[in-house]
């Protein structure tokens, strides 16, 4: 057959015929697609990262983000209909708090934690805010456990411990989060008529799977971008610092305080790296970064969180031990515990802190307040959909 074809269509002509045939097949496949979701356009932000963690098989779409928002707020995400068991991402990640928590762990132990951190039980870490996650390419959770180099396998094919999508199913199953079951979640969401056309629009099928739930919620999370804070306006030439804010900005970026080494670089106000910042060693907490890297220098190391909206996202540190920014500044000024594992970038560690004056603390705080973007706290494109009715997880205004 080959030799007949080669006689009829010798050399380059034979190759062209093959290529034309391949093109026809390719063109037919493109046009046989039954649906196409609408691509979502990310804002083009100066000084923000260009690279994102959007994985190839989960491009942002308008339909996917909408579906993800519904699921994010739907109390049936935990897999239960019982009013006392309704839980979703929104149970702990509250829009009015920049998608961090109320420090529910703190509610019981608030007065004890600051002075006696030993009373912290093993278990939950403080809820991290869900903003600008699309730009994070260096692991999720306080210790970065969920990262693209984690080769552990999840409970079923396709589930891993690698991406923002995996954070979703882990949160459904984790007793520290929804305490549910992904099988029950899939069964329940499948039975809800509201979702069938939404899954069809984004995935081309009404069939619900945990992978599709993960993808939709991850799309919604990636769409939450906070950038309308004063510092952004200053760097773009649209706004000006007050004198105390400018002094605070320079102190933040100085050798004395050295905050910028961990909390700057781009306008994310974090390097997205992990550091032991001199908190008193919590021997009860086994979930630091050392847990899975086994590097001694990762003992007591946690991620440097973004300082965007830090005015709102307290309590602070991985265990929520500090209730206010003032307490955080006091810690870095006089409360550092220097150990063999303290990161060398932590200034003044040997002396117990950087010894800030009262004015310097006020100036630093004034600068930190320029990192507040209140627009996302009430932006309805990130809010609970009215259509969810009684199943919507809402919080009364804080």
């Amino acid at each position, binding site marked *: 057959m080959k030799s007949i074809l080669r006689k009829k269509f010798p050399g*380059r002509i034979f*190759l*062209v015929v093959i*290529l*034309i045939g391949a*093109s*026809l097949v*390719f*063109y037919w496949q493109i046009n046989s697609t039954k649906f196409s979701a609408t691509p979502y356009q990310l804002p083009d932000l100066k*000084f*923000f*990262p*260009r*690279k994102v963690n959007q994985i190839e098989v989960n491009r942002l779409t308008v339909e996917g983000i909408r579906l993800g928002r519904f699921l994010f707020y739907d109390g049936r995400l935990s897999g239960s209909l019982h009013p006392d068991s309704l839980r979703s991402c929104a149970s702990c990640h509250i829009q009015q708090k920049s998608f961090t928590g109320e420090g529910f762990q703190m509610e019981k132990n608030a007065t004890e934690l600051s002075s006696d951190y030993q009373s912290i039980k093993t278990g939950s870490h403080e809820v991290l805010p869900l903003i600008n996650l699309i730009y994070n*390419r*260096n692991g999720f959770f306080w210790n970065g456990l969920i990262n693209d180099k984690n080769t552990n396998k999840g409970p079923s094919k396709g589930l891993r411990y690698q991406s923002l999508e995996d954070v979703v199913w882990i949160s459904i199953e984790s007793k520290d989060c929804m305490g549910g079951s992904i099988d029950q979640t899939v069964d329940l969401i499948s039975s809800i008529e509201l979702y069938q056309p939404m899954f069809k629009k984004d995935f081309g099928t009404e069939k619900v799977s945990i992978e599709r739930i993960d993808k939709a919620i991850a799309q919604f999370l990636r769409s939450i971008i906070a950038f309308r804070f004063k510092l952004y306006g200053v*760097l773009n030439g649209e706004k000006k610092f007050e004198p105390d804010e400018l002094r605070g900005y*320079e102190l933040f*970026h*100085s*050798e004395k305080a*050295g905050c*910028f*080494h961990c909390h*700057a*670089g*781009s306008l994310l106000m974090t*390097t*997205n*790296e992990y550091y032991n910042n001199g908190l008193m060693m919590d021997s009860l907490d086994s979930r630091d970064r050392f847990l899975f890297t086994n*590097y*001694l*220098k990762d003992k007591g190391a946690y991620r440097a969180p973004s300082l965007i909206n830090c005015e709102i996202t307290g309590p602070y540190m991985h265990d929520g031990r500090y209730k206010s920014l003032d307490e955080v500044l006091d810690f870095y000024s006089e409360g550092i515990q220097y150990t*063999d594992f*303290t*990161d*060398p*970038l*932590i*200034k003044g*560690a*040997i002396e117990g802190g950087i010894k800030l004056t009262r004015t310097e603390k006020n100036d630093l705080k004034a600068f930190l307040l320029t990192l507040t973007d209140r627009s996302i706290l009430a932006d309805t494109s990130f809010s609970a959909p009215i259509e969810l009715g009684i199943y919507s997880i809402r919080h009364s205004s804080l």
Partner: protein
Amino acid sequence: MKYLNIIVISLILLVYSCYSNEEETFNGTLSLKFNHVEGGNPVMYDQPVYSNAAGNQYEITNIQWFISDVSLVDNTDKIIPLSNDWLHYIDSDLPETQKWTLMDGIPPGEYSSIRFVFGIRGEKNEPMMFTDPPESNMIWPYHMGGDEGGYHYMKLNGFWVDLMAERTPFNFHIGVGQVYDNDQKVSDFIQNWFEIELPFSSFTMPAGGLVNADINMNIEDWFQNPKNYDHNDYGGSIMDNQEAMGTIRDNGHNVFSISIN
């Protein structure tokens, strides 16, 4: 139908271009591997096993730095800048940064040396030009570097044993220096980047060939030659200390060596 025609015509042109009879230039490729060494051996991180010329016992946590403006000198002393790929970031915690295959095609021939800039030239060291980590994490504060001092040239972090026998952190960081007036306000900036012509870096690039070169950063040499650097003199933080950074700059001319495979 219109799109199908475009696809087919494009593919036909592609096929014919593959059979072009035009002569091709067989440029070669230069690949650089960066090694951090102490006493000729790879650095052992987080091990307090080193001692510098000033007698400081120390350990190294990590190293991050920029190399830029690599150029070649041919056997007529002509300098050939490799400008397509002008800058590279190296990080001891990121193995993928420790090898750099330059995009520029290298014409076949004899070359007498390899040159590069340690750090970034002032006119290219633009504030906020990097938006993504890890490069963006090398930010140098604007009030300490001005319009030509956007980024650190190097961060070398670790610990030394100080005069009180305390294991003390050091941030051996170099970038643009400052001149302070009597009121301790910055009145001027000093560029501390420098260009190096590597000794014994001659090589022959065959047509279409690959030349691999190991560039070694000999850490102990940052602390000596021509001047001993004593951590006890400067302390652990030196970004606002031009005397310290000037010493680093001067010593830096002797820090790098090369071997070509």
